[in-house]
């Protein structure tokens, strides 16, 4: 059969897939497994018979399950032995390297790897264990004392399996013991590291040793060594690797250029501050600050990173030089980033683009001071690496750190003393008090700590001030921009907002709400990015942060309550999905099924509403259970509360139930003309609590459903719209009654909207005081047309009566003239004058009262004399 190309391809794919599968099976299954497959084919009938007739020894007993893969246990045992040996090695190393934080972290990572490996060795037994268990189950239990003994072959096999299982369990328990031991070691490392940190912060050095003239000669020696190392490397590199260096530098430079130029092209408009712009919006200032920090920093980072990468690649680096170069790169990166950030935020050249409204002079100083601080700290870090590698004396390290911390402390104090703002009267105003005192106290703290000899503490504080401070300021700028976007109408003015409003049907309000969402998202992102960053800087391990995040996501247990972010989120998601599904189903049922089925609108409406409520209730229930909230624990509380709720929400519940009854019973439907007590109008909407009725004056009346259930409701259009209208007419005594009757009947019959059946009827209803009273009673197909018909009939009656000279009497009213005393002529001026007088009197009274109150207070005070 010729196949279409697609299906042929599919078949080819399928064959290929099958081939791969078979290959994989063959490769993965050890020889024993294949033997097992071969064995089991004849074994299956026997195995199925075995439990049925264990007594019948003539039944062919299934041959043994495949023998254990040879050497599995031995292999794993050996592996565990290796792992244990490695762990022993690490334990020793922990003791040796206990003073060095970085090597402890390294050991910890390797131990974690070992722990995973030990778990994996245990995992290797899983299939074998499952096989053994299945086989033992097939063999059935050991026969009890009274029962006939089982054949030898069965009992020996069972024994063999049991002993193998015991062996496997022994190996796994070795692995377990190893993993427990490794966890213990990891905990120990954690304790040692925190002790190290504490030690670093609290260790006091003797400054008098460190600051002796000896230091200078040490420093000179050190510098000489360093210079020698670098220059020898340089000469080596230029002699043998010159081309490689050149190539690496050019490639790195090219990469950075591409990044910078590309970024400038892409973000050019938001990137560059426009000096001609007199009053840039806060948002554009923020975005300029952000991008002009981020892009150049990224470019520099890319340049440095790729330089080092290519140097490594071409084997240019040698020995310690790589470490020095790494350190140098990070120094340059940090200094550049700090400088860019301060420049962007304070923009000393363009006062209009400043994020913080400081004056130009102080802005320039702030940039210089911040950069200087970054330079000092980074240079110190670089030197510490050099010292470390050169094995220089401790006194040199102390002296260097002492100097750096003192400089940072002084810079902090200088920053605090700066008066960056200008008051209206031209005087300089200092920073806000909290900032000033914070900076001042940090600076003083650093200097005092350094002077007292707590160099580690001082260095730690000054490093944190620079690094954490930079991160915090960046995060703060991000928060500010989120706030600016969230403001009313701000998002519509951004380029994204303008693009959206041009290219989509979003209205202003929708854009505004979108802006709110964006600002919330930015806030969230900043927290997600900077919180881990700052935690990392404070020496937490990525693993710790991951574990925390995981715990937060899967559930924090407080007492017996577990709060889990994922649970709550999944509950919300489930509810939302359920809600939209309900809406979709409702729409489909209403629009496609029932509309096509010509179902009555009232029924349609009822079904739609009922489906909607049921669906939302269901979605809420499923959502709550998906969120992991146990409803059964609420049952007790609900039982106790329901009494109170029953009383408190009596009306609401009664209305709710009435609403359900209305939907089921349908005494009226949407569009009906009903009369309920005083209210008469068209039903607009039947909800669960209340029904909306629109009167003919277009007033919406919200009528609680219980009113509609408990009281009589008239419905003009319940089954049909047929209705009768009555029109009263009086004629003068003396008229020809027969003629009148005939004329009226004629008028009623001749109207096109009046039904022939039931027939119109003219009732001679009364001998009134002033007139003979008639009533025309006509039936209409649609009672809604009553007003038109009444009008037409009345006009026609008047016309006909005029023609035939039939009088309609009207009762004359007597006009009585009374002679009153003449009222004061309405005089606006007089009224106004009176009003002014009254106001004055009031004001005077108020003033009097105030004075009285004041004097009263004074009187209560003790006399000064």
């Amino acid at each position, binding site marked *: 059969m010729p196949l279409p190309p697609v299906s042929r391809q599919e078949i080819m794919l399928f064959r290929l897939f099958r081939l791969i599968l078979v290959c994989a099976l063959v490769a993965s299954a050890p020889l024993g497994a294949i033997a097992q497959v071969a064995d089991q084919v004849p074994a299956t009938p026997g195995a199925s018979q075995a439990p049925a007739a264990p007594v019948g020894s003539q039944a062919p007993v299934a041959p043994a399950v495949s023998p254990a893969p040879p050497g599995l246990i031995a292999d794993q045992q050996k592996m565990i032995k290796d792992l244990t040996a490695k762990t022993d090695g690490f334990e020793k190393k922990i003791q040796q390297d206990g003073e060095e934080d970085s090597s402890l972290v390294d050991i910890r990572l390797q131990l974690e790897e070992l722990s995973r490996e030990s778990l994996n060795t245990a995992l290797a037994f*899983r299939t074998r264990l499952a096989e053994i268990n299945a086989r033992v189950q097939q063999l059935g239990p050991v026969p009890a004392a009274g029962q006939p003994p089982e054949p030898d072959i069965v009992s020996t096999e069972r024994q063999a399996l049991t002993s193998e299982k015991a062996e496997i369990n022994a190996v*796994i328990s070795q692995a377990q013991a190893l993993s427990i031991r490794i*966890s213990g070691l990891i905990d120990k490392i954690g304790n040692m590291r925190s002790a190290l940190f504490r030690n670093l912060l609290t260790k006091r050095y003797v400054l008098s040793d460190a600051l002796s003239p000896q230091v200078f000669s040490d420093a000179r020696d050190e510098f000489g060594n360093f210079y020698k190392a670098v220059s020898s490397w340089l000469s080596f590199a230029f002699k043998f690797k010159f081309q490689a260096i050149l190539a690496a530098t050019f490639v790195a430079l090219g990469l950075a250029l591409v990044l910078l130029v590309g970024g400038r092209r892409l973000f050019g408009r938001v990137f560059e501050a426009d000096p001609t712009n007199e009053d840039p919006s806060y948002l554009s200032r923020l975005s300029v600050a952000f991008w002009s920090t981020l892009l150049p920093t990224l470019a520099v980072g890319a340049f440095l990173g790729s330089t080092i990468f290519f140097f490594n690649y071409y084997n240019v680096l040698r020995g310690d030089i790589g470490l020095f170069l790494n350190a140098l790169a990070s120094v340059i990166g940090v200094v550049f980033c700090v400088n860019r950030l301060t420049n962007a935020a304070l923009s000393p050249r363009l006062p209009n683009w400043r994020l913080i409204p400081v004056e130009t002079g102080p802005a320039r100083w702030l940039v210089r001071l911040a950069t200087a601080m970054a330079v000092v700290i980074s240079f110190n870090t670089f030197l510490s690496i050099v010292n470390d590698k050169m094995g220089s004396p401790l006194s040199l390290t102390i002296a260097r750190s002492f100097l750096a911390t003192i400089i940072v402390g002084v810079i902090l104090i200088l920053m605090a003393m700066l008066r960056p703002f200008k008051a209206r009267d031209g005087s300089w105003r200092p920073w806000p008090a909290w900032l000033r005192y914070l900076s001042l106290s940090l600076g003083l703290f650093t200097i005092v700590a350094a002077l007292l000899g707590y160099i580690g503490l001082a260095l730690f504080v000054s490093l944190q001030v620079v690094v954490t401070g930079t991160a915090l300021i960046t995060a703060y700028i991000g928060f500010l921009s989120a706030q600016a976007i969230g403001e009313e109408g701000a998002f519509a003015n951004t380029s994204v907002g303008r693009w959206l409003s041009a290219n989509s049907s979003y209205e202003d309000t929708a854009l505004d709400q979108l802006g709110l*969402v964006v600002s919330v998202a930015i806030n969230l992102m900043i927290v997600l990015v900077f919180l881990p960053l700052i935690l990392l800087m404070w020496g937490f391990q990525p693993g710790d942060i991951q574990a925390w995040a995981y715990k937060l996501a*899967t559930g924090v247990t407080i007492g017996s309550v577990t709060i889990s972010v994922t649970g709550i989120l999944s509950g919300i*998601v489930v509810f939302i999905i359920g809600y939209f599904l309900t809406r979709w189903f409702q729409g489909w049922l209403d629009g496609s099924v029932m509309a096509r089925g010509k179902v009555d609108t009232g029924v349609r409406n009822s079904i739609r509403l009922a489906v909607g409520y049921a669906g939302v209730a269901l979605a809420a229930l499923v959502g709550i259970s998906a969120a992991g909230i146990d409803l059964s624990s609420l049952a007790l509380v609900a039982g106790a509360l329901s009494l109170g709720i029953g009383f408190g929400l009596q009306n609401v519940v009664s209305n709710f139930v009435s609403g359900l009854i209305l939907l089921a019973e349908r005494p009226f439907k949407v569009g009906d003309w009903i009369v309920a007590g005083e209210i008469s109008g068209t039903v607009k909407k039947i909800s669960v609590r209340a029904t909306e009725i629109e009167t003919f004056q277009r007033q919406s009346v919200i009528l609680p459903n219980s009113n509609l259930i408990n009281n009589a409701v008239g419905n003009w259009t319940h089954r049909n719209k047929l209705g009768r209208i009555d029109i009263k007419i009086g004629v003068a005594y003396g008229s020809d009654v027969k003629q009148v009757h005939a004329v009226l009947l004629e008028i009623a019959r001749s109207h096109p909207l009046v039904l022939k059946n039931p027939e119109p009827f003219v009732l001679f209803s009364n001998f009134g005081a002033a007139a003979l009273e008639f009533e025309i009673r006509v039936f209409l197909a649609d009672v809604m047309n009553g007003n038109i018909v009444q009008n037409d009939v009345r006009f026609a009656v008047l016309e006909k009566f005029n023609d035939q000279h039939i009088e309609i009497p009207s009762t004359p009213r007597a006009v009585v003239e009374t002679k009153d005393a003449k009222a004061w002529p309405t005089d606006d001026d007089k009224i106004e004058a009176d009003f002014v007088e009254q106001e004055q009197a009031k004001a005077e009274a108020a003033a009097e009262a105030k004075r009285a109150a004041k004097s009263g207070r004074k009187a209560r005070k003790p006399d000064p004399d």
Partner: protein
Amino acid sequence: MPCEMQQGRWEHRYCTMWKSLVAAVALLAVSGSAHAASAVNKDAETRTLIVTEGGSKTELALAGGETVEFCQNGCFVTLPNGDLEALTGSETVEISGGVARIK
């Protein structure tokens, strides 16, 4: 219900916001999905697993019909029949008739 459907038409303004919110929540939910091993007890009586995780042994008592999540990054577990097994943290342990099976 802010996103009321009226005459088969979504009311526009709220819906855009709702849609964005839904998208955000869905994104978060997808990114935040994590895995752990779970144990299901299909028996009526309580079964106990002994879990060794992170250097400590804990007894995990499972009431009848209960499902419990445990063992986030690998652990050893002693099953009711005395077998010791290792779990990576993505399995389901199903106990029925006093016998545990790992899936």
